């Protein structure tokens, strides 16, 4: 090993070593700000902070929900989750079991981020606005949006109840399974 290389390695080791051993006592860590992140559980350490209650911008909007329905077919969501949300490769969306929660921001996260057991990550592949429209439609499959705004009977084969006849009594859930 040449003398120059030896010196270089020593310098690099010293530099890296300094960074490794640095203790920053004055600056705040990045996470010091109160988090507004989407929570997937109700369990929190200490006294619970309120669960965010972001609603889909299309919760009461017929056009947005209808767009969501169109996109649910166009992006092949139906192929995995069933034409009426009964599930197939992916879980059922019409029932009252929500692995990752039924809050609008939780469903947004599931579509955008994907989930490790098979849900693809659509974030960056489709516009956020369309994800919000899908969020509204997914909620409508379980009766979680206004029946006044939900889409009605299919033009195709009838395979389940129309979305606007699904009773909206089901509770929004934070992930529980």
């Amino acid at each position, binding site marked *: 090993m040449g003398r120059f290389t030896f010196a270089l390695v020593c310098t690099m080791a010293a530099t890296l070593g300094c960074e490794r051993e640095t203790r920053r006592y004055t600056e705040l860590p990045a996470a010091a700000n109160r988090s507004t992140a989407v929570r997937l559980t109700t369990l929190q350490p200490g006294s619970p902070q309120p669960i965010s209650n972001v609603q889909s911008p299309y919760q009461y909007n017929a056009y947005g929900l209808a767009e969501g329905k169109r996109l649910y077919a166009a992006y092949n969501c139906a192929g*995995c989750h069933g*034409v009426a949300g009964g599930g*197939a490769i992916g879980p059922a969306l019409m029932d009252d079991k929500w692995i990752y929660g039924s809050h609008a921001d939780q469903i947004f996260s599931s579509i955008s981020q994907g989930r490790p057991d098979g849900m693809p990550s659509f974030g960056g592949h489709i516009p956020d606005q369309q994800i919000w429209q899908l969020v509204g439609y997914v909620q409508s499959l379980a009766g979680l949006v206004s029946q006044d705004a939900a889409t009605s009977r299919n033009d195709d084969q009838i395979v389940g109840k129309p979305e606007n006849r699904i009773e909206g009594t089901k509770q929004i859930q934070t992930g529980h399974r």
Partner: protein
Amino acid sequence: MGIRAQRRGLFLTVAGIAFMISACQKPTSDTVQQSPASARALSGSLADPARLQQDDGQWVMSAKNYAATRFSSLGEITPANVKQMGVAWTFSTGVTAGHEGPPLVVGDTMYLVTPWPNILYAFDLTKPGAPIKWQYDPKPLGAAKGVACCDIVNRGAAYANGAIFFNALDGRTMSIDAATGKERWVTQLTDINRGETMTMAPLVVKGKVFVGNSGGEFGVRGWLTALDADSGKTAWRAYSTGPDKDVLIGPTFKPHYDSDRGKDLGITTWPGEAWRIGGGTVWGWLSYDPEADLLYYGTANPGPWNPEQRPGDNKWTAGMFARSPDTGEARWFYQTSPHDLYDHDGVNEMVLADLQMNGGTRKVLMRADRNGLLYVIDRLTGEVLSATPFVPVNSNKGVDLKSGRLIPVKEKESKQGMVVRDICPAAPGAKDEQPMAFSPKTGLLYIPHNNVCMDFEGTAVSYIAGTPYVGASVVYKAGPGGNRGFFTAWDPLAGKPKWQIKESFPVWSGALVANDVVFYGTMEGWFKAVDANTGQLLWQFKCGSGIIGHPMAFKGPDGHEYIAVTAGIGGWPGAIVSADLDPRDATAGNGWGGMLADLKKTTTKGGMLYVFTVGGGT
């Protein structure tokens, strides 16, 4: 870098020495083991699967033997004493998806691959309760589950020359040392981002491991790949669509029918570039005729299901190939469903037998196809000798034996934007992958199968890699008679059933014929033994979950006959339970929601291996 390389060198030296030591010790340990089963497994040339498949004490490949008969001549369990059969031991896999495929028995060891996460277990049969000898966890990607169409199943492993070969869902084929559970090689073959998975059971012939891909509902381009059994390197690959050079069609290709002759039919029978995403995956069963040196396998449905998006015959999907195992060259092809309208994959097992027909011996293969026809085909030429409906069929009028072509029924042709009702059989077919058995003693095929019809609407679909490419809204319903399944003993010469048992649910388990007793399971969880000649129910045992597994027979180190099967509801129909689908949507599970709502009230999920013997559990 230098230090790492040095270390690797040192490791290799140490590993090399360790290997040499273990290699030196091996003959000693072989001679120490005295039990007949292990001597049988490990002595010299018998390590070759071509020989092992003939030993009914063992079960070294999914289909039992190259002819795929799932027949065992072991005769200790008889129609007279099967009533005394009981549980010898059980094993919980801890996996709640559908358990297809049989365990293997090689020497004194049983091997079982679970559904995803595809853990390979080895059990020591010489010890009470068959404790785990070792387990190998390939840690397949969880994301692979998102592109597996019909539950996250695995259809079993294969043994050859001291190694167990199997596939993990995320598209890897593995060779694992059968004695130690150590990895020999792992080959990544598919890309889940293109919707490609692997679920089939490999077949090993003459030092090559044959594997195929799954993903016919994701716009995958199907193939069969031959891997070198020692290295895991690809020897050849034959695609099911595209130019002749990709399909390995050359001068030795001599199909029996005119419609399969012509240049690059794998391109010209498709619109534009649709063959690139046209399906024809190879997720089913393989057979091999050592005398003719021909490998047989089927190709799955063309994609998408909506047939209006792919005018043409869609070669070489929904049919069967005969190939040279050495080079992969195609010898003949026969298309069971040209321009498939109903998701009638051509992947069902082909049972090889020599039948006395029309005054002579014919070397045939027999296939109970999704399209409802039981084909008897000359396996040397690909000529259809007979094609007989084995369930009520209204979507075809059989086969024109002159042209070899399936005769379609105009009013049952599916259309985009139009619901065509009461098509029989439905998409999962008169019979899906659940394998039948054949007894050379009775000359009968024992067929576990469905009695299912459907309403079908084609819908426009866009190809988005990694998402379903189906384009259909389908709803299944019970076929005529109301029973959704049958277990049928079929006489292939007479072209009619010898006897038939109605079952409430589709019979999605495999069949086993062990001398004079036939075994199968139901989706309720009953494991049944019936008389091979009469179909009379002789014995049944209620397992903890519905059965879609494939029963097998072996002789234990104690010299007694055992029957093994996995319970664990799932698979395409059973996903209603295993994936907790909501049957209020009639398309749930891609069509099963409409007719299997009661399955959720009948059985629960949970994988368990059951091993039975006469006098077991006493």
